[in-house]
């Protein structure tokens, strides 16, 4: 097969068995490319299982910095005979199928439109190692070594990474390097290296970092001043708390007493987790929980209480595919409506939609400010793709002079100096936001009774309809105030005015922006875009939609939940918002978005004259 050489632009997928240590080998491979200055986007596709089932790791390499999923596979590293049939079928025409030929490919699976490279990895391992566990582990490092040869990578970068990885465990460095070299040599001996896909050093990464969103959220909670964390384990949010715990152990231990300046409580369920967050926040601490869809459902009753009793609450929702248990290890953006309107009665909650780890960090830290400023729940809507995959991101930032906005809280002195009766739910400043006091502040002033039942502005129980309305309308006013405080949408306009816009949010961003780039370069279609960052929607969101005849809403759920939220909040003509949906549990691809938009434009606008309006 005659081929062109393709440098730093391909998608490689590893097929492995979970629980065999392949994840760290695959990460080593991805990190090496990143260290060589070439942008990457790795995705871990794993089963809800601990050991023995198929698992995949897909790395998109793109020196132009497109980080969404592209769609299609150029190189398949097939290390799992269980999944070989689907793996070989999935490979794009003209791709490379690299496999362990200790066990051959069944003849009926053979394809003649791809290159097949067999490497006797298991055989080689059997010769090199006696211990079965070592055979398994080092086979992983060996195929990474083989890839270094096949892709013509600088080998030294792996040596450096292995040394970094086993810092403090020097005994492990040498055997890993040996396995890497063995794999490298095996590929050289078996195949005329390199293949037509190559990795070359570039300087296209800049000061970017490679980190998963859950670590960034956990760190955001540390920087945001969270002292109480209450949670219940649930995939894919668990590592938010793991990382929070890791960083508070580092930064929040009193060096003299060994005492902790934090408390992490693993609750008995999600109901208790959010209850603890509410109790701690009510009592003046910054507290948070992290969960996923099923947990969010369980927290609904309490979220209504927090909304109505006006208690700051920070919740990180790392979304996964639902409903019910759905596909717990696959990604979706399917809690949008469940989060925005969580609970019974008239409720709505501030939601933030991070797209990158930097935003995960920033929005988690900001969530505490917003929650305390508006005395209400704030939900950070991450997802599995963002939370559990390493994402290349701008570095996290924290300005040296940044302070916490603790919101309106009367101190003991404030209460002492009050000339009028303190009213917990009084709108003193006309922005709908009342003043809190913490329990234990003043001996005789400021005590009030927090309740989910209706109350007057002095927190006294009442069932008088007028008082109820007064309170609900004040909450609405507070909501309007919040709309212009939450992060603004990111609007990207084309050079000339255009009639079609595209809305994206969260992890649909990278693929959408790439699709728009290629719609322009390949099809001459240029469209405006808007990345929604928060709910309530600010005026700019409405304005963007009004400026365009049609607006695509790109999202990763079946029911077009963000579109519904927009229509519900603004009363748009529904036809103007065109759903563009992807919901198979994998991250949305740029190709898919591009094809959907292109096809829609072609179908909707049959006459060339009419079509021209979109170009």
């Amino acid at each position, binding site marked *: 097969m005659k081929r062109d050489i393709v440098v730093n632009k391909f998608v490689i997928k590893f097929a492995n068995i979970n629980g065999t240590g392949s994840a760290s080998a695959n990460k080593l491979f991805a990190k090496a490319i990143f260290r060589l200055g070439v942008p990457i986007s790795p995705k871990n596709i794993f089963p809800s299982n601990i050991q023995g089932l198929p698992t995949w790791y897909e790395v998109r390499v793109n020196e132009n910095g497109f980080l969404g999923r592209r769609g299609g596979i150029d190189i398949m590293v097939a290390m799992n005979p269980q999944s070989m049939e689907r793996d070989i079928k999935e490979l794009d025409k003209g791709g490379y199928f690299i496999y362990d030929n200790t066990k051959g490919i069944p003849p009926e699976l053979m394809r003649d439109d791809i290159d097949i490279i067999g490497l006797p990895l298991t055989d080689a391992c059997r010769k090199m190692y006696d211990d079965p566990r070592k055979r398994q582990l080092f086979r992983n490092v060996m195929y990474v070594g083989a890839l270094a040869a096949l892709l013509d990578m600088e080998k030294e970068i792996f040596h450096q990474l292995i040394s970094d990885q086993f810092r403090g465990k020097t005994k492990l460095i040498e055997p890993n390097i040996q396995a890497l070299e063995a794999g490298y040599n095996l590929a050289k001996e078996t195949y005329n290296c390199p293949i037509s896909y190559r990795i070359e050093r570039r300087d296209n990464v800049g000061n970017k*970092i490679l980190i998963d969103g859950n670590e960034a959220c956990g760190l955001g909670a540390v920087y945001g001043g969270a*002292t109480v964390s209450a949670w219940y384990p649930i995939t894919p949010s668990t590592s938010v708390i793991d990382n929070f715990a890791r960083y508070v152990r580092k930064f929040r231990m009193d060096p003299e007493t060994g005492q902790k300046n934090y408390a992490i409580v693993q609750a008995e369920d999600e109901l208790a987790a959010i*209850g603890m967050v509410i109790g701690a926040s009510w009592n003046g601490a910054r507290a948070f929980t992290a969960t996923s869809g099923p947990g969010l459902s369980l927290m609904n009753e309490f979220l209504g209480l927090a909304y109505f009793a006006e208690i700051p609450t920070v919740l990180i929702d790392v979304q996964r595919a639902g409903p019910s248990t759905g596909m717990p290890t696959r990604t979706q953006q399917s809690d949008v409506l469940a989060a925005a309107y969580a609970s019974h009665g008239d409720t709505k909650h501030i939601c933030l939609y991070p797209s990158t780890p930097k935003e995960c960090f920033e929005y988690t830290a900001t969530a505490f400010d917003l929650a305390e400023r508006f005395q209400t729940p704030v939900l950070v809507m991450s997802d599995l793709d963002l939370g559990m995959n390493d994402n290349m991101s701008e570095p996290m930032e924290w300005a040296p002079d940044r302070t916490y906005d603790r919101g309106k809280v009367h101190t003991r002195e404030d209460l002492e100096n009050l000339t009028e009766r303190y009213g917990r739910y009084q709108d003193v400043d006309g922005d709908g936001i009342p003043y809190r006091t913490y329990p234990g502040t003043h001996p005789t002033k400021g005590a009030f009774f927090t309740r989910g039942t209706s109350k007057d502005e002095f927190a006294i129980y009442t069932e008088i309809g007028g008082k109820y309305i007064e309170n609900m309308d004040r909450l609405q006013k507070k909501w309007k105030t919040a709309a212009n405080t939450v992060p603004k949408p990111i609007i990207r306009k084309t050079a000339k005015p255009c009639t079609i816009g595209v809305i994206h949010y969260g992890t649909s961003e990278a693929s959408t922006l790439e699709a728009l780039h290629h719609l322009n370069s390949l099809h001459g279609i240029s469209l405006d875009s808007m990345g929604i960052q928060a709910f309530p929607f600010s005026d700019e969101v409405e304005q963007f939609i009004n400026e365009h005849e049609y607006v695509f809403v790109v999202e990763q759920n079946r029911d077009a939940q963000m579109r519904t939220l927009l229509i519900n909040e603004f009363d748009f003509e529904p036809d103007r918002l065109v759903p563009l949906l992807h919901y198979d549990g994998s991250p949305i691809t740029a190709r898919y978005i591009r094809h959907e938009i292109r096809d829609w434009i072609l179908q909707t606008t049959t006459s060339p004259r009419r079509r021209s309006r979109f170009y």
Partner: protein
Amino acid sequence: MSYKIPTFRHPNLPKNDLGYTTKDYEGAVSTLCAGCGHDSISAAIIEACFEMSIEPHRVAKLSGIGCSSKTPTYFLGNSHGFNSVHGRMPSVATGANMANRNLLYIGVSGDGDTASIGMGQFVHAVRRNVNMVYICENNGVYGLTKGQDSATTDLGSTSKKGEPNPLEPIDLCSIALQLGATFVANSFSGDKHQLIPIIQAAIAHRGFAFINVISPCVTFNNVPGSTKAYDYIRQHMASTNTVDYVPHAEEITTDYPEGTSENVTMHDGSVISLHKLDTEHDVHSRRSALTMIKDYKAQDKVLTGILFMDEQSKDIHEIMNTTTTPLRNLGISELCPGTEQLEAINELHR
């Protein structure tokens, strides 16, 4: 029932060490039915806090949903209160306690809250040994929804509706003991001489102090066939001990025959003086307490008093080794690692 508490008080009302009278510990007027056992418990809490000279604003009172959970409005009006959601008071109290370990937490709950919808939360608050007083105002009936049996209704007990309860009851004291509760007492709302010092002992206890108080529902469950009626409890109540709470400054003056009394010194230096009515019982033995409850029940008696205490127990903060400063008092300088550290973390990810 009256709608307003008269503001007039006797000018010579006794004052406690803080100069407060009982008036300073009262709350809003109760909206419960006249004769409700819960009101007697509120009165006992007021009296207990007054006598112990507790600063009202240093108390946080929390509850779930139900008749019992309404009562925190009716005592300690100068304390912050939190009427949360049904059965979930333990989690809110746990969170509040995490934020500030220096307040006194009084949780009030009922049998629907504790033994049914919130059983899970109750169980885990016990396990964690959250430093709080947990009072279950147990009337064996759902009052606010008008008279359904609860999970603590005794087998065969009949409420006003007349149907004998066909299910085994949950004995909350036994459960608390089995879960490792560090203070367990059983009492009766109609016996304030017993209840007040038990509440005081529970307040002095560091850790989770559980008091089950049988508190008859005059409207739905005070009928002849009910085992949670005033008459029934008065006829069947037996006490394992009488309790005196002695602040640490005072001298113990009670004098009982050798072997029948025991003085337990609490971590704050106060003393719980127990006079044993049943000399068999060892208040420091969990096994003894469980056996006693069973034995008395077999004789158709309701055992009351302090059933078990472990005054040396470690509360949740000691277990977790959290700072002695209330977490909510920590500021950005203690909490935020700062810009340089973040840059170092960024660097580790390059």
